[in-house]
């Protein structure tokens, strides 16, 4: 007698139902923006609505086809965020167009990039049939990450935009390779740590109560990390440095199960942050803007206006289209959290944060249930990368921590970010499909074929 095996339900029906809700949120947000700004529902609502519905059905079908056991909650959460983000960018376009009719709408570009993001999502799911195969490419991804990070520093294709050299431009297109490097590094960290975790945890000398790993075990990863940090310092991209450093330390902790790494990481971070504060003028400006933004209203105009927007929104918000988020510089990208807080209020912004919280929670749950160590580390890393992005950017905008540049995943305007975050969701779904799929039955002598009346060719 075989023991009954617990088989997770596929839950694709639940996912479809949630997707319908998510699409409804996006379309309703778009319609209320039109109502709020111009008094009528935008005439092209059916276009955007249609596009969203097509996207939702397409992603749903892709998941059903190639990852039928994947987590059913992640995708609807992401679609809801993406739809809200599109509506908010469209809203700020309208706000700018009222003042300056020549304003080039950003929402169309964002819609196009969302399309690319979904293609990336589908490609990840279709091409990567088993995430464990990525482990074989550990060093390839590590190398790719470094190349991607160096690209913006190369003359010719590197672009310096607003003080940070993190873009590359080819013709009219610009791209932030750091966003792609994020995934590559997560794969590299996960793959490397899986192999070296025992060596890192056990081999080595004990020094001052801490087990120090051997240099040859720690060396490559430390080198990779240092290189990426160095590049980021040259590019003045504080947010990404923080993200990569956090990813590195936390994955090291998960792989070795040694909390000492967190202590070492925290000390290193504190030292690095303090030296950064002393060495870089722009860090000091950010810290001052955080501690007392009103001491210099001209320099801290953006932060102050973000706060004004949040306060103006209050408990219930001004309503979509009825606030003035266009008063905050970059209210459609870096400061989209403040724009949402203004028009959707405290309640709306809390709901958005809850959606992010759920995404992170689902990601970590995938890491917990994953059966292989590589998948565990990769899923935890990807979930953590979303958590850090949200914490750093929303915390910066709301003055919980100093402002550092990162994008709000799925909401903020920006092509590279949206494509790469969709790819992250693709990877997470792939791992969860692998995790929840019942183990293939090993039955050699009872063939199904024997019971078939008509054999289908």
């Amino acid at each position: 007698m075989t023991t009954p095996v617990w088989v997770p339900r596929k839950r694709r029906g639940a996912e479809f139902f949630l997707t319908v809700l998510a699409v409804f949120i996006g379309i309703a947000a778009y319609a209320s923006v039109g109502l709020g700004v111009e008094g009528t529902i935008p005439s092209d609502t059916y276009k955007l609505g249609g596009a969203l519905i097509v996207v939702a059905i397409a992603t749903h079908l892709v998941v059903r086809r190639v990852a039928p056991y994947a987590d059913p909650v992640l995708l609807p959460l992401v679609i809801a965020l993406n739809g809200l983000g599109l509506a908010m960018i469209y809203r700020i376009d309208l706000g700018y167009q009222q003042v300056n009719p020549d304003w080039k709408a950003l929402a169309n570009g964002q819609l196009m990039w969302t399309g690319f993001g979904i293609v990336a999502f589908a490609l990840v799911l279709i091409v990567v049939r088993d995430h464990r195969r990525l482990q074989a490419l550990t060093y390839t991804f590590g190398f790719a990450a470094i190349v991607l990070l160096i690209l913006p520093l190369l003359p010719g294709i590197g672009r310096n935009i607003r003080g940070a050299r993190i873009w590359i431009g080819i013709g009219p297109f610009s791209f932030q390779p750091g966003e792609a490097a994020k995934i590559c590094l997560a794969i590299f960290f996960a793959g490397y740590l899986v192999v070296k975790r025992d060596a890192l945890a056990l081999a080595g000398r004990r020094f001052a109560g801490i087990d120090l790993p051997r240099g040859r075990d720690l060396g490559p990863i430390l080198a990779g990390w240092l290189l990426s940090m160095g590049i980021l310092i040259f590019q003045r991209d504080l947010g990404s440095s923080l993200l990569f450093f956090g990813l590195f330390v936390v994955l090291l902790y998960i792989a070795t199960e040694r909390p000492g790494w967190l202590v070492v990481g925290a000390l290193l971070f504190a030292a690095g942050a303090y030296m950064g504060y002393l060495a870089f003028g722009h860090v000091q400006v950010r810290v001052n803007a955080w501690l007392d933004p009103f001491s210099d209203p001209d320099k801290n105009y953006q932060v102050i206006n973000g706060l004004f927007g949040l306060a103006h929104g209050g408990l219930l918000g001004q309503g979509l289209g009825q606030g003035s988020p266009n008063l905050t510089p970059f209210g459609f990208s870096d400061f989209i959290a403040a724009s949402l807080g203004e028009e959707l209020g405290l309640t709306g912004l809390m709901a958005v944060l809850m959606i992010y919280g759920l995404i992170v929670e689902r990601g970590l749950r995938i890491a917990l249930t994953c059966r292989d160590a590589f998948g565990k580390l990769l899923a935890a890393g990807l979930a953590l990368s979303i958590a850090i992005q949200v914490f750093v950017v929303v915390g910066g905008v709301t003055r919980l921590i100093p402002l550092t540049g990162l994008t709000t995943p799925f909401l903020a305007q920006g092509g590279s970010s949206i494509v790469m975050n969709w790819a992250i969701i693709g990877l997470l779904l792939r791992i969860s499909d692998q995790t929840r799929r019942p183990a293939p039955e090993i039955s050699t002598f009872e063939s199904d074929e024997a019971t078939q009346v008509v054999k289908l060719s």
Partner: protein
Amino acid sequence: MNKPIRNLAIACLVMFMALLVNINYVQFVEADSLNAKNGNKRVINEEFSRDRGSILIDGKPIAESVKSKDEYKFQRKYPEGGLYAPLTGYFSYIFGRSALENSENRVLSGSDDRLFVNRVIDLLSNKQPKGGSVEVTIDPLAQKTAAEGLEALGKGTKGAVAAINPKTGAVLAMVTQPSYNPNRLASHDFAKVQKSWEELTTDKNQPMLNRTTQQTLPPGSTFKLVTAAAALEKGVVDDVDDKIKAGARLSFGGGITYTLPNENGGNCGGDRITLEQAMNVSCNVAFGALALKVGQTDLAEQAGKFGFGTDPLADLPMNPSRFTSGDTPLEQPQLAQSGIGQFEVAATPLQMAMVAGGIANDGKVMKPYVVDTVRAPNLRVLDKTQPKTLSEAVSASTARKLQEMMVSTVQVGTATSAQIPGVDVGAKTGTAQSTADRPPYAWFVSYAKDGDDSVAVAVLVESSNTARNEIAGGRLAGPIAKSVMEAVLGK
């Protein structure tokens, strides 16, 4: 590896909790103070798009919002131009608010807590929120008369008139010259507003200064009322007929070569004269000597009781009047000069009107106020100001003695220009020196009683086209005070 992942989950939970708590703090706890911050365009935009309440005098607006066709929906208008500018202040998109537009903003904009029910009803019936209205205490005829009086002195005149009701403290006139037109700052043509602002703020005549409450200048001889009050209260002099030291010059002894002369070098009519006569002729030597006898402490205390050093009119920007700067211990000559309203003594016209008002009100100084009634958009009265006593400056008997001297000054002294037939008028003139290179300030402080009606007026002429030797409180400022009192009493 599951344990670290679980810990990571807890860490992420903590991070998200921190974000949630923080946005609750920003959007709920801190929201009000952020909304009240300067330069918050969102709040300004919202205020500009609202039907802001009016500031009224006898039901007629001196500040109102009318519908406009641009994006802001309403345009603030000041029908009387600069006449009431010191009271209304301006309501400007770029430069914020001032005076009553600022201090009564919560009512005018409709965000006052007392209007909460109105806001809920507006919300439910999908109407734009409306602001409440503010009725001020000003007597329009007195205001106009005072302004015309100052204008009649010529184009370059700088001066101010403050009139109050001695029994209540209600401000009846508040005029400053030159003034400005707040319509220029309330305009929606921001380039023009910017230009107007630059003109107004760089104008060396300071047209945006409320001279009745913000301009502190030496009150000169009008301060002798305070010195006399202190002397009578402290028993240095018992009655108005008591003889006090006078003469041509006050010397100090102790090796001090400086002596305090009289205004025109005369001797006030003898070496010893009555207190009343000293008041009538505004004898510097007599009051300088009195100040020395009263002493710095008691003189300062008396000034404080009349309101010096306080900021009693909360609704408008105000500089407190002062007896000394800080707590300067005064040398004898300085104390004598202070006793005649010189040295560091500085007062606003409103403060001097309070002195006259306190004397006319039998010693009781009332707290001045300009807002009479605050009404909701549906005209329901939200608040009506109740008169409050600021202090008992002098006893009733001292007050009567001071009244007697002020009346005598109008009848036979330096203030004859304020006589109104059939009305009990008391006054004191002042011609205050500042520096040698500029003309003296002409002051006139007075009160009038007609049956139950009474009014106290202070007039200050800082500078005018009048020739220097013509400047004297009685001649320049007296007729203005007289016409304002007539206007209030309906004579």
